[in-house]
């Protein structure tokens, strides 16, 4: 029998089939709820290992088939059978895997011929937070977008496993999810836990249909019906204790379903688990002081049963307290588990935001999803050795004044210890602490723009460097095949660009200043043809490093990286940690800013209008807290959901001699008189995002045109223009600006001339024709009347001429009436 191959014994299969039918009938009659497709207990995550295994399996199967076919061919035709290695074509597997990685199209888990796309993506290296966040991202495959509205909604089973705030907005909203801070994914276990189950009181399912199972509960292991037991709660408790004592693997999930009279045990891979404190074992922490496993690691806590991993099924049976302090209260004994920390239900990006629970969710989403991955920080710790295609580096990155629980917990054992002998943290904050005043400043910071202190920028605030690498390959001169034209690195006089900065070997010297239009790598063929690489029109920089090496295929290649230092200029984008993004609007000199009695001058001035509609009091709280911290205060944590209260912050400020609400009395920098209203000032953590105006500015007067239509090209890289579309044309028409329209659409675009024969009204050509006297001249000539009299030249756009010729090719002739103007 091929049904239920994982079960032996026909009677067992019969029982299982009956069980399935019973479930179906109960669901149909409404006595049992239908399974929810979006509940996490019915979902599994596929990690990299599984995916690779699947892909490899497919390719190996493919290679095997080829091998057997080749063998058979040889056998049938009575040829010599070679040793078996000759038949195995390893390149099928290599090429197949390579193709899967490069295109991202992976084999479908159960449909043989289909592929899932989007499995492979390049990991971003803008800053370390982006890398970490991308590595913790999950993607859900849906065939048809639109219908699956439910899949995009958050489900209660997501709590603590998947961050319910950080998800991209747009077409992937709700489908791409990020793992929560403490979420773990279960892996495959090699051990069989059946003996343990039998130990705890399970009776094995006999292969017959006669034993009465009416009052016994069924036990399922990974969906297989393996046994029954009479006292399920005792059984379950026993198993759980075993797990806490490390006798069962920690990933095993045990669920008792009283309504269906089932016990479900899951041990397969792909479940998302999260750690919770076990209330009854909490006393062990106190007892453990002095023993060898005190504070040593998470693993030891797990082994001793203080923490256990809970999956989505088992979570229903737990009564979890929100925090430790609830355990100590009156109703503390009704809880079985306790959350480690309240902020751990968010993902990595969100839990780093201070006072995130005070902000509007949309702003938290922007910060977590977008700004944190676009911020410029310290992308790598070995920039001197790496040659990335594009990398940014902030000159003076800083740690923010506040701390969150998550940022405190990120650290690895083998990092050198920092101050206070505590573990240092991996730094995921990418920005600097700036003194921010919430004030209007001469109208330059309206509509989300910022005014910055020029002196701070001159001292190096938010200065960053950008490194871009250019790569080039040459054919190997030692290869056996002689190509037509061997290209090699070298300096030749080039017509396409300036070669002043190149050395003799074709590479520029380090710290050469290259502009757009310079040759960056000189390559020439033996025949003298020029294959040099030229800088496009917006690229420039100083040469940082030149590397010459060879790759696996034996070809030589060279990499030249250029470095640009970018001080913030007007138009560069900045953001605070609360989704308040803005563009630099004005650089004000330090002396013109309002100053406090201590002489503190703001670095950034943000417009107060940014706050009412966006509802981010989190930024103001962060500012006030930061002020308190910088004066030596003791409040430091700004973890979401366990933030210090506003009163505490105000007290802290007051204790240090500042106004309770964070206001400052300032004096006008220009006139010196006291400003009558109080200004809110405080240190806030700001990030510089990698959208910079220099990368986006477009300008062109005349430039490259499209060969077919002779109109300007569209790209910025290729020195193109901006489209002046139909609606813009309508606006000019509505203004009555006729000459402007003429200029925009004709003179500056594709003006050209055609000749028209006055007699037959057709378009005349310009050809080379012989003239009396034996010479040939180039001039207009009407082929139809075969004469040159009466030919006039008119100005028309090239597009018109093109249209005329295309219609002509279709068989439609256009004739023109002309009039002298």
């Amino acid at each position, binding site marked *: 029998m091929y049904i239920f191959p994982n079960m032996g014994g026909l009677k067992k299969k019969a029982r299982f089939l009956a069980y399935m039918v019973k479930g179906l009938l109960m669901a149909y009659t409404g006595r049992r709820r239908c399974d929810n497709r979006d509940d996490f207990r019915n979902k599994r995550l596929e990690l990299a290992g599984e995916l690779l295994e699947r892909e490899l399996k497919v390719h190996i199967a493919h290679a095997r088939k080829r091998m057997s076919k080749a063998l058979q061919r040889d056998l049938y035709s009575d040829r010599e059978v070679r040793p078996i290695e000759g038949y195995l074509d390893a390149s099928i597997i290599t090429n197949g895997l390579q193709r899967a990685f490069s295109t991202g199209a992976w084999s479908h888990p159960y449909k043989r011929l289909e592929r899932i796309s989007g499995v492979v993506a390049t990991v971003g290296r803008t800053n370390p937070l982006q890398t970490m966040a991308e590595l913790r991202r999950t993607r859900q495959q849906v065939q048809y977008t639109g219908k699956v509205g439910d899949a995009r909604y958050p489900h209660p089973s997501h709590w603590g496993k998947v961050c319910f705030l950080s998800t991209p907005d747009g077409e992937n909203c709700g489908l791409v999810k990020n793992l929560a801070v403490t979420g773990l994914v279960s892996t495959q276990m090699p051990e069989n836990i059946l003996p343990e189950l039998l130990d705890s009181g399970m009776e094995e399912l006999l292969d017959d249909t006669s034993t009465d199972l009416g009052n016994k509960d069924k036990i399922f292991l990974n969906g297989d019906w393996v046994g029954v037991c009479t006292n399920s709660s005792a059984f379950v408790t026993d198993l759980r204790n075993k797990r806490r004592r490390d006798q069962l693997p920690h990933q095993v999930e045990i669920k008792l379903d009283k309504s269906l009279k089932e016990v479900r045990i899951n041990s397969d891979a792909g479940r998302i688990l999260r750690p919770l404190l076990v209330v009854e074992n909490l006393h062990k922490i106190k007892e453990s002081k002095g023993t060898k496993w005190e504070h040593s690691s998470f693993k030891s806590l797990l082994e001793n049963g203080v923490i256990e991993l809970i999956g989505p099924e088992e979570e229903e049976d737990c009564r979890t307290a929100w925090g430790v302090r609830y355990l100590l209260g009156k109703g503390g004994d009704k809880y079985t588990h306790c959350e480690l920390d309240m902020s751990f239900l968010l993902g990595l990006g969100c839990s780093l935001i201070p006072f995130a629970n005070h902000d509007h969710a949309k702003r938290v989403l922007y910060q977590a999803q977008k700004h944190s991955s676009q911020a410029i920080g310290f992308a790598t710790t070995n920039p001197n050795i790496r040659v990335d295609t594009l990398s940014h580096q902030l000159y003076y990155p800083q740690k923010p004044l506040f701390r969150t629980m998550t940022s405190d917990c990120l650290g690895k054992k083998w990092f050198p210890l920092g101050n206070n002998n505590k573990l240092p943290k991996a730094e995921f904050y990418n920005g600097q602490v700036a003194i921010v005043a919430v004030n209007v400043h001469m109208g330059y910071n309206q509509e989300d723009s910022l005014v910055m202190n020029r002196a701070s920028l001159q001292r190096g605030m938010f200065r960053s460097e950008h490194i871009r690498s250019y790569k080039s390959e040459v054919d190997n001169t030692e290869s056996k095949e002689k190509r037509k034209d061997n290209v090699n690195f070298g300096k030749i006089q080039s017509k396409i660009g300036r070669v002043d900065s190149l050395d003799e070997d074709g590479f520029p010297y380090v710290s050469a200043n290259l502009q757009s239009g310079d040759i960056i790598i000189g390559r020439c063929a033996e025949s003298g043809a020029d294959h040099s690489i030229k800088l496009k029109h917006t690229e420039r920089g100083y040469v940082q490093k030149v590397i010459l090496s060879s790759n696996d295929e034996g070809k030589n290649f060279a990499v030249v990286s250029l470095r640009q230092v970018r001080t913030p200029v007007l138009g560069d984008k900045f953001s605070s940690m609360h989704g308040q993004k803005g563009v630099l609007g004005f650089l004000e000199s330090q002396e013109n800013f309002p100053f406090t009695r201590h002489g503190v001058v703001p670095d950034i001035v943000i417009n107060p209008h940014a706050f009412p509609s966006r509802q981010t009091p989190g930024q103001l709280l962060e500012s006030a807290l930061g002020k308190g911290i910088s004066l030596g205060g003791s409040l430091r944590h700004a973890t979401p959901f366990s933030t210090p209260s506003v009163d505490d912050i105000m007290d802290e400020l007051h204790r240090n001699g500042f106004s309770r609400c964070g206001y400052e009395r300032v004096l006008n920098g220009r006139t010196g008189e006291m400003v009558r209203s109080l200004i809110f000032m405080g240190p806030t953590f700001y990030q510089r995002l990698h959208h910079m105006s220099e990368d986006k500015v477009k300008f062109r007067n005349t430039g490259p045109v499209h060969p077919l239509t002779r109109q300007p090209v569209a790209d910025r890289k290729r020195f193109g223009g901006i489209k002046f579309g139909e609606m813009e*044309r309508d606006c000019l028409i*509505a203004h*009555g*600006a*006729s000459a402007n329209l*003429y200029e925009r659409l004709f003179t500056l675009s594709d003006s050209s001339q055609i000749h028209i024969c006055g007699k037959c009204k057709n378009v005349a050509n310009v050809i080379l024709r012989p003239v009396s006297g034996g010479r040939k001249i180039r001039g207009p000539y009407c082929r139809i009347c075969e004469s040159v009299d009466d030919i006039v030249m008119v100005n*028309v*756009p090239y597009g018109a001429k093109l249209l005329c010729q295309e219609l002509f090719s*279709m*068989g439609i002739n256009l004739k023109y009436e002309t009039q002298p103007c």
Partner: protein
Amino acid sequence: MDAVWIETQNLDSLKMKKSDFDRAFRYEFDNENWNPNFLLEGPIEELKTNTELRNVLEAEVLKLAHDRSQLATEITCKSSLPLPVNLKRLIRNAQKDFKVDFQKTSDMHPLEIVEAVDRLQERLKVVPGDDLVSQEDQKNATLLFSILLRSSLASKRVLQEYRLSREAFEWLVGEIEWRFQQSFVTAGEMIGCVAAQSIGELATQLTLETFHCVGLSAKNVTLGVPRLREIIGTAKTIQTPSLSVQLKPGSGVTSEDVKRVQCDLEHTTLRRVTHIAEVWYDPEPMNTVIEEDVDFIKSYFETPNEQVSLQRNSISPWLLRIELDREMMVDKKLSMGDIAEKINRVFNGDLECIFNDENAEKLVLRIRIMNGEAHPGEIQDGSADHVFLKKIQSNMLSEMTLHGIPGINKVFIKAIDVQKFNEEDGLQNHKEWMLETEGGNLLAAMCHEHVDAARTTSNHLIETIEVLGIEAVRRSLLDELRVVMSFDGLYVNCRHLALLCDVMTYRGHLMAITTHGIARNDAGPSMRFLFEETVDALCDAAVSAETDHLRSIREYNMLGQVAPFGTGQCALCPNDDMLNNANELQLPSSYGWS
């Protein structure tokens, strides 16, 4: 008028009660103790004695009263209209600039004011020309503004309310004239483009789905973008056609009358009032198999009835028995007799119809076919009859109109506020009944005796143009567009909508702004192929060797010439005469020209 210079202004004389009106505008000459503090001594004496002066001022007041009634009855009932030259602001500016003191009296004579205002009106010329058409045009163009002007600058108001001095008043008059000239639209303004952009920008703010009309009637009206598309595309069938029926002044008073008209209009078929309809085999016409009907048949045939006895032999044995729903009958105000009569009328005596008493338990209609002798072709056995009877049944149930006008499915009664003008009280709100229907048949509805044909409208454009003609549909188009826009609270100046309506109707028939409309009319081939359906239009043009006279802006752009709109309307030509007398100038050599 350029839409840019127009502001909403209030015509306050419209809403005033008579007493307020008098107080604001009329001088109380006849009062013995009249000693106004806003006039100087001289004019007061004159007014008391000089009858000519009094006549002039009386005439002024009369004109104002006439304006008021004309405005209310003929033009509109809204008191705030978009008009150029914001008079109130100008008056305020005059008061501020010339430091008018509200305690002092003005140094002007009321006669001067009246004359100055008259002269001003003459100078506000929109349409030049002396012939009758131009003069009437001029009057129509400045009608509203003149009313506003006269009511704002009435002599008593200027003296009493505004207290303008002579200087201030003269400045004011000059300013009004200048600003009026300024609000003319520039010659060559691209009104089509501006109108299209104005309407289009608002259309982007409309909802994409239809809204249900909230209210007692729960009636569906298409609104938003789908409705706009129907209107502009002059769709032949629209989603919610409806009529808005106003009743004649006498008959719209009590709700009883209105209900009667509603029943008259609403189309009722037999199906609406039928509970059950069955075909029975009942061989004896005098007796019946059905137990319930035994009594009623017996009593019916006791009273001798001529018709029945004559044709007893040829009555079909098959019976169509219809049971009617009592509630529906009452609701539609129908009686059994009506129905029977209708059936007899429609089938011309081919059917015999018996009905039982109104007060019986069940309302039953029994119908049998009369097999006349003169049916030679028909088989005389009963089998064909019942098929025939079934056909009759379905026909009667669905097609036979008992009541009302076909096409009108449902009629709702609505109470609306109507503003009626009354000499005494000015504009007053008045409650009136009107009917709104679902489904439309304008022609038939207008013919009903209680319906006021002059005020009944349909929202279906094709119907309006068929019944009422092109001018009516232009107005209807404007109204429909306004309804769509104003439902969301948006405002478009009516000149843009008016332009759209005019463009759609000026050819004498409704032209839709779609491929069909634009392409099928006499635009040049370039316009057609640039709009939609490029290849088809080009091939058609080529096959018939069409000439394109290159009149539109697109064609100028296509061929790279300065289009003659806006600044391209005029060109500079050198004046040859002056050139002849010109002196040559030496250019300074520092320009570097050789």
